[in-house]
């Protein structure tokens, strides 16, 4: 009798637990919504880093604040990108997947470069980094616009 009661409770719970271990295969709408959220996170973190570098270039911000926030921005983008990359894109969204993966990868690399430059207080690198961040920001905006 106990098993008769337990099975209907345990089976859905076990299924849910297993579902959490398997990469999700969302429908087109959900996949595009996830892509949009990931791009928005990337836009926010790239813009944050742009502001930080501009402020540091002008001597208006303390180095520890820049280094700490860069760490958080990099972590936040990496986590969001990783969660998005774990999704199985629907076949019709392969093109979107390729574009997102490319621009998110570039953004991640740039945030890593910004961290290194900030740690070294390499202000000479900042103009080039800001220029690259500006370009990736435009790409993110363009891709977001196609999704919203």
């Amino acid at each position, binding site marked *: 009798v106990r098993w008769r009661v337990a099975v209907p409770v345990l089976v859905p719970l076990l299924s849910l637990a297993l579902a959490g271990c398997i990469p999700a295969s969302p429908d087109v709408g959900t996949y595009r919504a996830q892509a949009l959220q990931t791009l928005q996170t990337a836009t926010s973190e790239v*813009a944050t880093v742009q*502001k930080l570098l501009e402020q540091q270039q002008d001597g208006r911000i303390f180095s520890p604040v820049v280094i700490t926030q860069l760490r958080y921005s990099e972590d936040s983008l990496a986590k969001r990108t990783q969660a998005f990359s774990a999704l199985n894109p629907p076949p019709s969204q392969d093109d979107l997947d390729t574009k997102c993966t490319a621009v998110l990868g570039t953004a991640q690399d740039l945030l890593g470069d910004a961290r290194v430059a900030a740690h070294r207080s390499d202000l000479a690198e900042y103009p080039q980094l800001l220029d690259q961040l500006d370009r990736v920001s435009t790409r993110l905006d363009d891709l977001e616009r196609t999704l919203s």
Partner: protein
Amino acid sequence: VKSLFAVALGILTAVGGFVDIGDLVTNGLVGSRFGLSLAWVVVVGVVGIAVFAEMSGRVVAVSGRPTFDIVRERLGPRVGLANLVGSMAVSLLTYVAEIGGVALSLELATSVWEYFWLPFTAAAVWLVLWRAKFDIIENVFGLLGLALVVFAVAVWHLGPDWGGLFHTAVTAAKPGQEDITTYWYFAIALFGAAMTPYEVFFFSSGGVEEKWSEKSIPTMRANVLIGFPLGGMLSLSIAAAASLTLQPASIEVNTLGQVALPVSIALGKLGLAIALLGFFAATFGAACETGLSVGYSIAQYFGWQWGKFVPPMQAARFHAVLLLSTLLAVAILLTTIDPVLVTEFSVVFSAIALPLTYLPILIVANDEQYMGHRSNRWLANTLGSIYMVVVVVASLAAIPLMIITNMGTT
């Protein structure tokens, strides 16, 4: 002159002590996403906390006993227990968030990892709770918290279109790209941040610590009716600064560093240094207040000796609760949970627990047996009743909205 100084000091500490990690993060986040379109919630929240803080302060001044001691006696142990569990759980969660907030402030100032700071922060908070006098805790951190006025200066220095800001605040127009459910989710989070239960616990128990009598009622009212609204202005200036600098750049606030960024943009290093001092004071002061609130609530429910007005040896169980809750808080944070996430949970769960905290206050403040001629009059009862409807609605809507919006991320 002495009484004027006491009133002024009370008001200033009420202003400086109003903002905590919940207000910092929630107002920064809301400002960066919704501009000032949710400013009305801060106003509603400040009026609400002022209404109930005045009631609980009056109860203490008349009876000489903390509100929740009377709640248990007047409404019985079962209602008292529901009140204790709901309010204390939220206070404990807020305590975790505040200690995390202190560590984040130190990390921001030094770039040394927050987890390094956690044990030192917890030890410092516990040491202050154990050794420092009540008025030192209240006044020092309250006054230092005034450093957050730098956000108002930053807004003024940014030279905004005041008409446009005022228009957004008055029309409460949701930004087009945001979902209506997300708008209401953040409205409840802001409301919970403004009306956190620990504020009333601390305020009423603090009245006993400071030996309020009926003569203290005018001073208490000045603190509540002037200090809290001015504290609310600080919250609004954090949101306004974020809306002016971060929203146009599509930056969504998720960290304390992003909350500080508008001050750096407006005022440079000096402003930023003051903001960091304000973060530290606000979170450390609130950590002491929430820690004490956890101790107050448990000790008052079980009828133990409590408070800073007696030596620790005479209130050993109260101090044991303070120590254990501090150890629990640091243990939770050392699991590497994000303190900002804990903060987001704490403000939403505050909203859920609001009826459990505020309904008993309304009942006790109406009881002539305790209050005599100082029981609630029509204005306090009308406002109290309206707010009970608001807090019940917010409490019921909080969890469904949290699930639907995935904690505001949709």
